[in-house]
């Protein structure tokens, strides 16, 4: 009897056992050595940042005589891992770069239990606060103190196809208010070739609200939370915005189309299905990278204002660098954070690689920002974004950020239902009621959090 037949569990388990032994052997043989604990561990989630920091860090290591380990971890995993490490009380990276909305998890409950370090005093002490765009600190603040170094500004402009816009007779220099924009949009959002399907839509608007609604609300000065952390989106102003948004996406003269995300957006742009796209600075890079065939045919314009002379930009997204409280070398970590975020010449190179506008105002005078960008019809998009950067609205955050966004979308969707059933009759009342309900729901979550804050351990 061969060995296989003698194996009690049968052929297949035997095969698995054999493969297991072989693969473990190969794995052990090819395992990489894990280096000894470095002085600092910093984790980031974007390839572009990883590349940039990898080039910069050796200089820091030399200057301070330390060893720094840089990790690239995808964002969801990074957040999950930090959260788990906190829950389990285990080692975390010393610094972690995360997206907006991540701060909430680390700033729940009593201040002593926050997982992230308070850097307000250090910012003041090193004179960094005045050199940065103030509104960005709102994203990374909790209870009046700052807990992460903002990375970027992310002002929002509209990208458009110059050739199509010219063909359809739109003069973008005239589109300085949303009223004029909607008017032009209604003119061209029609069925041109008579096949029953609208051929051109003016602008990309998410059907379920989401970032389209958020961006517009922030532009109007609306907020999810106020500076004290109270729920603040159930206002008359937001109700009017929701009504406007519903009409533009579902009304009889709608100008908005939902392109989705990723590949379908590229196709919509190439086919000319949608003329204008929401383009914060990072997305301009995305377009350059993923729709190269439109090079030279694209341009950017500031957002139309809601009132003449009003704010012409909004904000979308944000990355920040948090220093974990558990770090054993807080001062060194702070030095590294400053080194990575405020080394001015470096920031120019990073802009070149990502189109992202840094928070440090001094950097905006670098030559890279003036450079004409051939993709965007040779416009100096750096200067254009930088001009709008000081106006970006603040975004006050709270531990229950996600609930606020979810409930705003919920209120929006319920209002859409009302519109589809009853048209404009009673629409504003319905919207106000839905917003109030949404705000109440968020408040319930916020109350849980404050209960935790006050409870003794």
């Amino acid at each position: 009897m061969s060995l296989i037949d003698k194996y009690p569990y049968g052929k297949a388990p035997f095969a698995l056992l054999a493969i297991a032994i072989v693969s473990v052997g190969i794995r052990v043989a090819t395992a990489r050595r894990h280096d000894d604990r470095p002085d600092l561990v910093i984790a980031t989630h974007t390839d572009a940042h990883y590349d940039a920091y990898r080039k910069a860090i050796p200089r820091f290591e030399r200057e301070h005589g330390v060893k720094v380990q840089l990790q690239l971890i995808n964002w969801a995993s990074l957040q999950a891992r930090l959260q788990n490490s906190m829950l389990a009380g285990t080692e975390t990276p010393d610094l972690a770069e995360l997206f907006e909305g991540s701060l909430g998890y680390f700033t729940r409950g009593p201040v002593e239990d926050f997982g992230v370090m308070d850097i307000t005093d250090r910012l003041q002490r090193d004179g960094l606060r005045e050199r940065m765009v103030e509104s960005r600190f709102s994203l990374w603040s909790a209870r009046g103190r700052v807990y992460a170094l903002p990375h970027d500004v992310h002002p929002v402009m509209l990208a458009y196809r110059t050739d199509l816009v010219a063909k359809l007779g739109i003069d973008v220099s005239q589109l300085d208010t949303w009223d004029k924009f909607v008017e032009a949009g209604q003119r061209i959002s029609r069925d041109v070739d008579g096949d029953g399907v609208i051929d051109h839509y003016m602008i990309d608007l998410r059907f379920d609200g989401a970032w389209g609604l958020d961006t517009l609300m922030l532009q109007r000065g609306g907020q999810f939370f106020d500076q004290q952390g109270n729920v603040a989106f159930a206002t008359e102003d937001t109700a009017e915005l929701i009504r406007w948004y519903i009409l533009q996406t579902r009304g009889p003269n709608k100008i908005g189309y939902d392109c989705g995300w990723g590949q379908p957006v590229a196709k919509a742009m190439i086919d000319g299905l949608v003329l204008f796209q929401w383009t914060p600075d990072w997305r301009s890079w995305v377009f350059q990278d993923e729709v190269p065939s439109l090079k030279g045919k694209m341009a950017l314009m500031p957002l139309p204002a809601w009132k003449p002379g009003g704010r012409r930009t909004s904000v979308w997204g944000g990355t920040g660098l948090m220093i974990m409280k558990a770090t054993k070398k807080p001062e060194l970590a702070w030095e590294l954070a400053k080194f990575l975020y405020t080394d001015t010449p470096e920031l120019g190179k990073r802009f070149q690689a990502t189109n992202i506008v840094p928070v440090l105002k001094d950097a905006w005078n670098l030559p890279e920002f003036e450079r004409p960008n051939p993709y965007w019809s040779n416009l100096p998009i750096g200067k254009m974004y930088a001009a709008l950067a000081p106006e970006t609205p603040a975004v006050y955050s709270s531990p229950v950020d996600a609930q606020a966004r979810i409930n705003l979308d919920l209120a929006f969707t319920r209002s859409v239902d009302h519109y589809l059933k009853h048209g404009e009759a009673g629409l504003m009342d319905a919207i106000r009621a839905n917003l109030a309900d949404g705000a109440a729901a968020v408040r319930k979550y916020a109350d849980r959090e404050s209960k935790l804050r006050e409870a003794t351990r």
Partner: protein
Amino acid sequence: MKIRHKGPAPYLFLSPYLILTTIFFVVPFVNAIMLAFYETNGPRSRAFVGFDNFRFLLHDTNFHAALWNTTIFAVVSVCVQLPLAMALALLLNGGGSRLRGIFRLIFFSPNLVGQVLVGILFSVLFTPRYGLITRGFQAFLHWGIEARWLTDPALIMPAIVLASLWLWVGFNMVYFLAALQTVDKSLEEAARIDGASAWQVFWHVTLPSMRHVVVFVVIMTVIGSYQLFELPLTLLSESYGYGAKNAGLTLITYLNYNGFRSGDLGLGSAVGWVIALIIFTISLIQIRVARLTED
């Protein structure tokens, strides 16, 4: 008849299982249970809140939505997925064994891809205008080229159901097919000779002979449905797994989000309690019903 052993043999055989389960299941489980009565934030702070977590769940509309969605999904799974699986099994039962083998493989093949990858795959297939499913519906039913399967509240649950059908109809069909093979053909023949129609033969002869498998599959399907998580999470990854108007929210997604990801393990544990209780109750009911119909 089983042998009653006085010796240590059974305990020795069971000891690895018992030890490992105690370490890696019981201890975390007890930990999690205790948490249900606390509100937590990280390893240090926890506040004892008694039954507050449960009270919160009772009044939270998101939780109600999750409960509703998950129950609907379970009902649809049992009433649509299983009959489809049974129908396919019946259809395949007649054919020759080689053809049967090939088609069995075909229908089972989606299970080779994990739930996560199915979710991501289907999120691509549901792309408006260009996705395979969108185009398929347009080609055969002249509807839905602009359908937003993943952002329209009315279509989100159908999208999840479609993806789950693709995954699990084949899986359950294999069980049913195996069971059908063991049904006594002579009984069926006798019934047919007595003049029973095909449906009557199925309902009164075939199905009762497969009782054990059917009960087993139904129970497993219900338990699985209440634990549905990775599929809607990856399908609706752009809306936190909730879906517009909470249409895609399932109990475990709720647990993951409000318990785990927000640091409030206490609430998560409370949700876990509720889920376990629901599953336990339903399973008990099902077993009772199965026992009753046996006679």
